[in-house]
């Protein structure tokens, strides 16, 4: 596509792209190296002559072993998984129904409700966490997974609804009209015809919602207090940092392992993630 000399391609394309990729991925490489680096190497100042930043000659699994044996890491993983799956399921259920109603049905205030959903979609978690913490306490949900399972949908439902509305709008109306003439009720036309056709959108919304739940931090930090109830992000933050002491090896091991589920889903569904991102910003 682009003409010109070979050096131009190097200067204007290969080099900047390489720098971008290195810059964006280096922290993850750093995570991996730190995870397998023995403490003796880990706490060697960079001024030291034998400082080897980019590799280690004595890889060890000690940090991972410590993480799994001495901390509640596996418990946190399970908690996070449980919470993310349920919050995603609830949000998908609500988002599917609401998205369908808002994009397809005619009823009073449909337009303003759609706008309302869009606004709630933009509300950041940090705006409401203090009163929400109070409410969670009043409902006696504090320090239970339900505190998160029920509050994550507040930002996941608007997201799912918004994303799915875009998908529903793209499905020809005639499909469900035909189904209704064929003898399906409104509910059946929605469930048997519209939802199956929107499967790519549902998948996008689902994996995105799962990722957002997995990554959520402030609600988990504020609503949960016992170590055995925590999610991965919060557990690592609070249990592997004692005062000023950071257990860097295990911390990085935790960060690495804690990212695995999300990274795995991501690697399987890259295209759906990209579709989710582009769908979520569509007006």
């Amino acid at each position, binding site marked *: *596509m*682009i003409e010109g000399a070979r050096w131009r391609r190097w200067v204007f*394309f290969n080099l900047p*792209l390489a720098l*971008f*990729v290195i*810059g*964006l*991925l280096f*922290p*993850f490489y*750093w995570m991996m190296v*730190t995870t397998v680096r023995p403490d003796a190497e880990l706490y060697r100042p*960079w001024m030291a002559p034998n400082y080897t930043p980019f590799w280690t000659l004595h890889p060890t699994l000690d940090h991972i072993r410590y993480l799994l044996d001495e901390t509640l890491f596996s418990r946190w993983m399970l908690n996070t998984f449980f919470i993310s799956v349920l919050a995603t399921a*609830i949000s998908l259920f*609500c*988002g599917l*129904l609401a998205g*369908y*109603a808002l994009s397809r049905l005619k009823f*009073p205030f449909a337009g303003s409700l759609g*706008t309302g959903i869009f606004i709630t979609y*933009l*509300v*950041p*978690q*940090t705006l*409401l966490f*203090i*009163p*929400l*913490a*109070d*409410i969670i306490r009043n409902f006696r949900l504090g320090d239970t997974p339900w505190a998160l399972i029920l509050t994550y*949908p*507040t930002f996941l*439902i608007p997201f799912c*609804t918004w994303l799915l509305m875009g998908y529903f709008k793209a499905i020809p109306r005639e499909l469900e009209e035909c189904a209704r003439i064929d003898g399906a009720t*409104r*509910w059946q036309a929605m469930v048997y015809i519209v939802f199956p056709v929107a499967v790519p959108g549902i998948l996008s919304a689902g994996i995105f919602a799962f*990722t957002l739940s997995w*990554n959520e931090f*402030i609600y988990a930090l*504020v609503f949960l207090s016992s170590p055995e109830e925590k999610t991965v*992000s*919060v557990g690592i*933050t609070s249990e592997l940092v004692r005062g000023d002491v*950071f257990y860097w090896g295990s911390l*990085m091991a935790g*960060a*690495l392992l804690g*990212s695995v589920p999300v*990274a795995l889903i*991501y690697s399987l569904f*890259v295209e759906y993630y*990209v579709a989710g*991102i*582009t769908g979520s*910003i569509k*007006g």
Partner: protein
Amino acid sequence: MAAESVVAAKSYTAAPRRGAVTRVLENERWFAFFLLLPTAVLLGLFMAYPFIKGVMLALSDAKVGVPGSFVGLQNFTALLNDSIFRTAVWNTIVYTAVTTVFKLALGLWLALLLNRHFRGKAVTRAFVLLPFIIPTVLSTFAWKWMFDPTFSVINWTLFHLGIIRTRINWLSDPGLALISVIIVNIWRGVPFYAISLLAGLQTVNPELAEAAAIDGARPWQRFRYITWPLLLPVTMVVVLFSVIQTFADFQLVYVLTGGGPANATQLFATYAYQIGVGTGLLGQGAAISLAMFPVLLVVVVVQLLYIRRVEIH
């Protein structure tokens, strides 16, 4: 014969009797009502109610375990005289403005690079998005470790490149802490910009750029007069989204500096957390959170107006 009798028995009557539920759900309005009900209940309980509760808290002197009483706007007037709050406001503005400019510039650049054809494009794109996918708190810990003054790989690199002579205290130097936080935010945000803008770029018909090239437009002119105007709607939306997220950011600063040193990186959200959860002054904390609201509202209104305008055209 047997088959035929089965057929006859099953033959369809023109108006089957339908249950009451079915009849109600066939009414478009009732159907819409029931579809929206679960969402309305959840958002009402955990969004609308907390919002009202937040306003009430912000107007009270509630503390953890103490319901508190109504004090009017006292919390807000106190904030006006609170130098830490003013610092937090200023920091938030700088943090949002600087990161947005860099994220947009770098994101656009990366998007343009990724929009070209090259081997391994799909893989590159997938890897580039990783900072956005991996839990922020976890990747931020990697940065915190990279910023460590004594063991820092960044310092080692800069030293060996001959850029610095002594160690740099990235996170504990009040002058550098905000810059460090900004760097990490840019790192995390660029992929989102790049992928969104790349999607926008892919909707721009390449024939337009080719037609402009035939008309004698240089690459820069092609970008300036063809690609950029067509990309503007997507860019607007991405920027507004990102502004809201950045303005209300919490976890990145919480992990890297906790708002320190000496409040040099204190943002709205971290300060609200410190007062509301750390100190337990619920009323004060809620007031700090809600102080974000007017700014967010303006951004949302701008966004809605912009979307309306785009829809009308």
